[in-house]
Every structure is written in structure tokens, then in C-alpha cells.
């Protein structure tokens, strides 16, 4: 694993179970500084107050979807370079295209395993996004 596990990660999902799974999987790969938000609006507010080193977000949430959050993050001068991984059950081609064009750093389709999560985080952080 090549990335610094001392990073601060913001996870965003409207399912409490998924936040808990993500938190546990991140802890298992050594990432302890994890904050969570249950929708895009909350995540954006938290990010502006205390910018994270990485955002891992679901797509389907209200108010403010993961895609809208990504667009706001990329439009924000202070946050625009923050690595952003979309983790979603939306596996349709048009969703992947929309996310990539909005500037997503990588895309994980649910259900995923710990190895995929680790590899994507590694790839995104080591690529210097």
C-alpha cells in the first residue's frame, strides 16, 4: 500500500449501515481519521469547514446527490483538487460518463470488496489528484 494512512477521509452515504461498513473497512487498511455525512449538502458544509484529503461518496442521496456534491466540490476553489471516489450501485454507462466528466477521480460499483476499495484509494492518492 503506497498511500499515507494518516489522511483524513470524508465518507458520504444515506445508509447508516454503509457508513459503518466503510468506516470499518477503512480502519482495517489503517485509515482512522474518518468523518461521515448522510447527504451531499451535509458533506459540502463539512468539507468547507474542514477540508478532507479524500471524499468517498454514494450517488443516490437527498438533499444533494453525490454527483451534485462532486460538481460543487470541483467548482470550489479550496476543494477542487480533493480526490473524490464515487461508490454507488449505479453501474449504467451514462452514470459513469457523467461522473467522469464532472471530474470524479474513480468509480466503485456496489457491492464491492475491501481489496477494490484499497486499490482505488491507493490509485487515486498515489496518482496525485
Amino acid at each position, binding site marked *: 500500500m503506497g498511500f499515507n494512512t494518516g489522511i483524513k477521509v470524508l465518507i458520504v452515504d444515506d445508509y447508516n449501515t454503509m457508513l459503518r461498513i466503510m468506516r470499518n473497512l477503512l480502519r482495517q487498511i489503517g485509515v482512522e481519521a474518518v468523518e461521515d455525512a448522510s447527504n451531499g449538502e451535509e458533506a459540502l458544509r463539512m468539507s468547507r469547514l474542514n477540508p478532507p484529503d479524500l471524499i468517498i461518496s454514494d450517488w443516490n442521496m437527498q438533499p444533494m446527490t453525490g454527483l451534485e456534491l462532486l460538481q460543487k466540490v470541483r467548482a470550489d476553489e479550496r476543494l477542487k483538487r480533493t480526490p473524490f471516489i464515487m461508490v454507488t450501485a*449505479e453501474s449504467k454507462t451514462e452514470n459513469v460518463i457523467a461522473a467522469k466528466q464532472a471530474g470524479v477521480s474513480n468509480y466503485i460499483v456496489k457491492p464491492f470488496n475491501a481489496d477494490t476499495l484499497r486499490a482505488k484509494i491507493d490509485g487515486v492518492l498515489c496518482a496525485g489528484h
Partner: protein
Amino acid sequence: MTTTARSAAAPATLQLGNANDFLDRVISKLDALDNTQKLPLMSVLRYLSDYIHATRRELRALRCEADGGKLLTSSASELEEVVSETENATGNIMSAAETIEVIATRLDKQTAEELTAAVTRIYEASAFQDITGQRITKVMGAIDQVENRIDTLLRFCNTEAEATPKPKKTTPLVNGPQLQKMANTQDDIDRLFASINGPP
């Protein structure tokens, strides 16, 4: 216009319920006429009237079923319960797994690693609750739409008593999980992702 035709005149706005009454009146007036040529026409009109009666009956049955309640509404509530119960069960499974993970730190290295690997698989598998929850929400949205359409049909049939408008529910934002046999895998997504240009 004859007396018979005037008294059987259709209302300006013809609903299915009115149409039924109108047909029955026409049949009754025709029946009173002393003309054998009326018989084929009466037979067709009776068929139409019976058909409309049966359609209205079927629609009412669709809307008012199951223990005197609403079949579709109660099915949607059952599904909501499924989501809630699986969420609770998943929470309990996760708590047990977290406890195992803590206990594993007190054991020898190899056993601890084996237990942690097993716990990781439990965490990964627990994501089922998110996926099934999204799928069930899609089904609930579909039930909601069917119910609203039945209500519209019932209003058209002039049986408003059974057609109680229900509050609109929030529908899922996008499509939710695709069916497994049609969905892109992570490998498909990775290939696709690599082939798309990012923002300009």
C-alpha cells in the same frame, strides 16, 4: 327526436359509471318497443353493459382487498418493514463482527489475521442491505404508480368512494441498482472509466 331517444340521452360528460346507466336505460326503452329487429342490437348493448359492470367490479376489487384494507398500500408497508428489519439485523451482525475484531487483537498473530479476514468478509457481505434496500425502494415506487393509476381509473369509472387520493411518495433519484445479469461489473466500469475523457 322521439320520446324514447330523449329520455335515454347521454349526459354531456360521459364517465364509465354514467355510460353504464345510459346503456341500461337504452336497453330498457328498446325492450319496451314492439319490434323484432331490436333483438340483435339489444344483445350487443347488453354485452357492453355487462362488460362495463365487470370492469368496474374488477377495478373496485383491485383497490379494496385484503382484510378490508388496501392490498397495494399494505404490500408497500410490508416492504418498508422488510427494509427496516434487515437494517436492524445487519446492525446486529455488524456489532458482532466488530466485537470479534476487538477480541482478535488479544489472540496470536495468525489466528488474529484469520479472524480479521473473516470479519472483512462479513463487512463486505453486509452491504447487501444497501443494495436490497434500493431494490425494494424501486419496487415500492412502482407499486405507488400502479396504485395512483388505479385511483385515476376508479375516478373515471365514477366510483370516487373507493378512490381515496394518497399522498405522493418520494421516488428514487435515479435508477438504483441494475439487475445483475444486465449490470456492468467493476472490471467493465474500470475499462469504461479509463476510456472516457475527464472534464475539459
